[in-house]
């Protein structure tokens, strides 16, 4: 699993594949206040991105790679 779920935090690691989107959605549905930690994430599949955007998930840590972080910031910080 590229996503590790803790109490109120989802830790993303390396490349998060398309199959993770469904559990991620379920987790966010259950824990609307859940935060995500993307520090160790290098890429996430568009399906996951879509879930994060829809859930307006709050991000605890942005990815280390600057380009990727820019993408995610632009997508997730955008006012809805």
């Amino acid at each position, binding site marked *: 699993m590229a996503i590790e779920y803790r109490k109120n935090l989802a830790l993303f690691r390396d490349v998060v594949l398309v199959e993770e989107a469904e559990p991620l959605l379920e987790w*966010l549905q259950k824990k*609307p206040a859940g935060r995500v930690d993307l520090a160790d994430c290098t*890429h996430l599949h*568009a399906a996951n991105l*879509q879930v994060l*955007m*829809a859930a307006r998930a709050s991000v605890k840590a942005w990815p280390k790679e600057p380009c*990727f972080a820019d*993408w995610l910031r*632009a997508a997730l910080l955008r006012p809805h």
Partner: protein
Amino acid sequence: MTPLLEQFLSEARDFLQGIGEKLMQLEKAPADAELMTELFRFVHTLKGNSGLFDFPEMTRVLHAGEDLMDAVRQGRVAYSRELADRLLDAMDFVGMLCDEIEQTGAIGSACAADSARLGAALRQLIGTVVTGTPQAVPSPAAQPIPAALPPLESLPEAARMAAFRLAHAGKPLHWLTYTPDEGCFFSGDDPFFQARQTPGIVWGGVVAREAWPKLLELDAYRCILDFHLLSSASRADLDEYYRYMPEQIVCVTFPALALVQPQGDPNGGPVYEDFVVEALDTLGRGDSGSLAHAARTMLELSNPDLWLSSALRWLLLLIELEPDNRTAQGIVIESLRNLDAIDWNAATSLAPSVEGAPEVIADIGLSPEEQAALAALVATQRAILDMPIETAWQMGRVRAVASTLAGCLRSSRREGEIPGLEAATAAALEDAMAAPLMDWLDHHFGTAPVAETSAATTSTAAEAAPATMLPPEDTKSAGEGEGEVKFGRRAEDAFSGPKSLKVDQAKIDLLMNLIGEIVVAKNALPYLAGRAETVFGVRELSREIKAQYAVINRIAEEMQDAIMQVRMMPVSFVFQRFPRLVRDISRKLGKEVNLVLEGEETEADKNIIESLGDPLVHIVRNSLDHGFELPEVRRAAGKPAEGSLTIRATQESDRVVIEIQDDGKGIDPEVVKRKAYEKGLIDETALERLSNQDAVNLVFVAGFSMAEVVSDLSGRGVGMDVVRTAIEKVNGAIALDSEKGRGTRIRLSLPLSMAVTNVMIIESDGQIFGLPMDSVVETVRVARADIRTIKRSMATVLRGRIVPLKSLNKLLGLATPPIANDQDELAVLVVRLGEESVGLLVDDFRETVDIILKPMTGVLAGLGCYSGSALMGDGSVLMVLNVKELM
């Protein structure tokens, strides 16, 4: 290019031809369901085939065509002339793609948009909802600079500034909107990854296509994301990158100035009137230094998040990159008056940018190195044109220069100037001088660095004037021709024919016969030369005839070779059926067999290859049925459970050798002997006497079978006997060796070609006969004293071996005894007969010749002792003996 691809291309052309024909027929009979089904099948097969290769452009169009035909077939869509037109267009496009693949091995990225457009046009007829309407994907040719600029203001300033700098470095700017298909997650796509990897990406953003549903209702696997991308890659690179999804991409270009858009906190509204007035004044004086200084000071004093600061940063960037574009700078300053977003689209404001544009556009995609290369090229062309033109052929230089220059224009995106170049070239060719072209060069690439003598220039300028004035109408028509989609190939256009032909075999056979006749006719020339010398006594003529003969001989031989080549086929033609056959049979028998094919590219005459098919199948079946043991038996014998069957083809001088080797249980000679005895094929004495090798060879005897029970695979006792007969029919030989418990190896040796037979001519009883060279072992003279008579048959000892002798005359029923030579020696032709050698007593030996053997026909066909006849150069007929039948 792989053989598979070659085959695909050749088949694709046939299919396209077929589709075209069917469409024509349908025009006459639109209700013909059978025609329609056939048409569908063509399109369907072609699409399926194209899917084997990485040609998404082709597959997409064909897929659309297939769907459309399917709809028509099922009556959901009516056949119409428009439908036929669009389908023909699409097929022309596919044909063009085939040409392109053939020439370059791949499909250029430029075709993706056409492919999407054609596909959409076809789908439109089905009436289904099309993602990415055709209008959404304008062909690159028709791509205008859009009136509405992309929402650049949503980009962060840093990204826009970076892009602006890139544009000034000569990079093209493209705004891409990537709208992935809703179901794309299911086809394994990751649009986010695709977007992130876009070439030349400067900035990228993701937005939702629609309002986000409630989280509980969200479908995680329905993609509703849109991607916006700003890229500095060339259009071609982008097209290439998105070639699998051209319908999901909208790519627009925009003037770089559109990026200049201050943003930020208005901080209580426009209060910078003083600065604006002062700055405009400084700008009016053209004092860039002071303006920059003032702007920098103001910037330092202001909060960087202010609208003002943003505008100042842009102003500074403009001063740096476009110091002469005062209008643009002024507009940025003006914007401070009321803090309104700058509308670059307004005519006044864009004017300077358009003026400044040519420079940018002209150099689009040209790096400094490329510009240097271009300059060097142009200089070289100039040097070439400077060379004096004395004779007509030197005009070729002018043509070469013109085509080089056209290439330069194309790669520097100045296609618009090509017609002018063409006109200048035409004028130059007409006047037989380089001047008009030189003049054109001076106009379009600047004058030569080295000043030319004024006299020459003026005179050429005067001449060239009409030439450069001429083109306008030409320009237009030629330009339109260029702009038109190039696959709009119609019947009247030049047709580049396919490179391979399918020819009826009968035609090749006819050629073969004709070349045979030429060989015979040409062989008559030496006789003629001989007659010229001996009968008419004209030695000179004789020599000339001989010289002429040598020429004709060479050509005829080459021609014969060429025709032979046409008939050559790789053995893969018969081999290809084996993987499936072996798999099916071994599965059925519960055996595990690994098939290894080697030397599939070995070639031989078509007839030979075709005659190989059935025997090989027999052998392989036999091997699978009798040769291989069941896996458990194999394991018990210490062999790997999986058996190995190797079929290997090799060429050995003028024969092709095929070996079929298995590592099965081999043939037990004792069992063979017993079986043969049971079937009454051998008698008791033979049972004792036969060597193991001879016993193994009993499997070739008619009526022999190894199998205990007759199965549907083998055991009917016709197998190996039939194989041997079939192989011998084409002058082949078969050999089998087998080791009990280790496996069996069967070796087939076949001639490469049956067309020309090398025969040795012998003389007997005043007649000449031919004997195939491959059965001849040697020719010897044996003294009559050395011939012994054992019982009633003759024999002699040759190198320690007893060779039985037979008189050819006697075999042919001729009463005359063989004639001996002066030393009382008899001519013995030793021939191979199976494993043995037999000596034939003849009168004399003659030369060997290549002949085209014609089998005996009609009443003569029953004469087994002759394998055929051939016509000799002097018009006589040579009868070729069949040694085996003769004995």
